[in-house]
């Protein structure tokens, strides 16, 4: 009797197990992205139909093989991504989900761009494998390139008439056309300021297009961050002087040299500092601090200005968003600066965040890891706005 019950139980377990397996297979097959799962040795244990179609392989070519034999992750130039830099290795070793963009070599030897998301499979707190979702983003790259080319042409065409407006307005302002009346000077300042903003907007839009398309180059080199902070403060101090704002710098002890992209860090800092000055009333104060923490360096830009209302705070890094309390005080902002720098910070493997209270001021933080920023072989360098 007991034997019969056990047999029946085994049979029903088998049926249930086959049913579960079929359901799992159906679930994996219906995922619209390529999926590859490995065990802790990097042996592929599962693959779905989209992955096989994308890679041009059959299931028998994949299951039981090592990840690196099947999925050939490469850089744009075709050179192989070293094992330690593979998203799947990074996810497995760190225990965290890793998102990345790279290229893949198909079985017919063509290279195509992919977007990858890998998570470690954790069992009892230990990684026992990894699961990778990936997608061929060739169409996205083509669309982004068309967008970037369009922006490049559009910005050239917009700058052409702007060059004449700007140059001739400066000629009048500098007295090449004879002396100006006080009223004419005021009118001219409006033209010059509008031309400046238009120039700034074109530069920012170009930069955003490049960052969004993933074509921005990150070119790390050893950077003395103290000198960089001094340079940016020197560059921007005239704006603080115009508003009688007390602009100060404070350095913590032992700031390391960090391997990062100086141009991009300058753009982030210049933007944070310029915002602090713009959104602080006359006679206020702005303090820039640079300190070293256990694993990163931290830039802090603290002002005692208008602050960001609580209901606006979660939108502050969104494109075109401007907080309700500043649109009347500073109508000329674009709502693009913080969006751009949050993306630049991400490209640098850093982070930007803030704390703020209305009418008490804001503190913006920008961190960069001690280990530096990873190189990214983009097509374009950032154009520092107004430089």
């Amino acid at each position, binding site marked *: 009797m007991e034997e019969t019950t056990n047999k029946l139980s085994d049979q029903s377990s088998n049926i249930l197990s086959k049913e579960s397996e079929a359901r799992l297979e159906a679930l994996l097959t219906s995922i619209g992205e390529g999926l590859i799962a490995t065990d802790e040795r990097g042996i592929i244990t599962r693959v779905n139909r989209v992955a096989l179609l994308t890679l041009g392989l059959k299931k028998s070519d994949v299951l039981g093989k090592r990840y690196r034999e099947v999925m050939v992750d490469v850089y744009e130039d075709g050179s192989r991504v070293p094992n330690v830099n593979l998203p799947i290795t990074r996810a497995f070793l760190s225990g965290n989900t890793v998102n990345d963009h790279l290229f893949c070599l198909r079985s017919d030897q063509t290279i195509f761009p992919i977007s990858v998301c890998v998570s470690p499979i954790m069992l009892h707190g230990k990684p026992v494998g990894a699961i990778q979702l990936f997608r061929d983003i060739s169409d996205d790259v083509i669309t982004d390139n068309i967008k970037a080319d369009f922006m*490049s042409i559009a*910005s*050239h065409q917009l*700058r052409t008439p702007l060059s*004449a407006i700007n140059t001739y307005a400066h000629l009048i302002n500098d007295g*090449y056309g004879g002396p100006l009346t006080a009223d004419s000077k005021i009118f001219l300042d409006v033209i010059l300021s509008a031309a400046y903003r238009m120039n700034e907007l074109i530069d920012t839009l170009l930069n955003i297009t490049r960052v969004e398309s993933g074509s921005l180059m990150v070119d790390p080199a050893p950077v003395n961050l103290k000198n960089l902070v001094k340079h940016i403060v020197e560059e921007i101090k005239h704006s603080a002087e115009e508003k009688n704002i007390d602009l100060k710098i404070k350095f913590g002890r032992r700031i390391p040299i960090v391997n990062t992209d100086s141009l991009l860090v300058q753009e982030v800092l210049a933007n944070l500092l310029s915002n602090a000055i713009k959104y602080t009333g006359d006679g206020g104060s702005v303090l820039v601090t640079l300190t070293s923490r256990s694993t990163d360096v931290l830039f802090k830009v603290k002002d005692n200005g208008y602050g960001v209302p609580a209901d606006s705070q979660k939108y502050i890094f969104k494109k075109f968003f401007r907080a309700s309390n500043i649109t009347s005080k500073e109508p000329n902002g674009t709502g693009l600066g913080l969006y751009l720098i949050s993306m630049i910070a991400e490209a640098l493997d850093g982070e930007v965040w803030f704390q703020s209270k209305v009418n008490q001021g804001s503190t913006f933080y920008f961190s960069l890891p001690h280990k530096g920023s990873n190189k990214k072989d983009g*097509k374009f360098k950032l*154009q520092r706005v107004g430089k």
Partner: protein
Amino acid sequence: MAKILIIEDDKDLNAAYALILNAESHTVQSAYNGSEALVLLKNFNPDLILLDLLMPVKSGVEFIKEYAKSGSDHAKIVIFTNLENSPEINEALELGAYKCIVKSWTAPRGLIKVVNDLLSEPLRAQIREN
């Protein structure tokens, strides 16, 4: 004072740059494309050339290549363009142009500074691989 050639197809900008540089007592000549400039150069030997890149008839890059072949290419070249991160800029710099300036941001004081800085910079050997 120096001899300067402005090669810029936008007549208004060309006139503005000439006005600014004349006021600094430089001797200035204007051309409106690369071909016109090469004709002018038969009788004018400038110290500095302000060069636009996108021009009709003969572009800035084409001009640099032909100027290099002339054997009398003693002038320092500074690119004035509204292009950015473009292959034309890279090519012009590789061919020996000293600097690239975005026109829409240029004010008279900026132009004067660029010109003075470049005039005081020692002449470097230009690359002529083409």
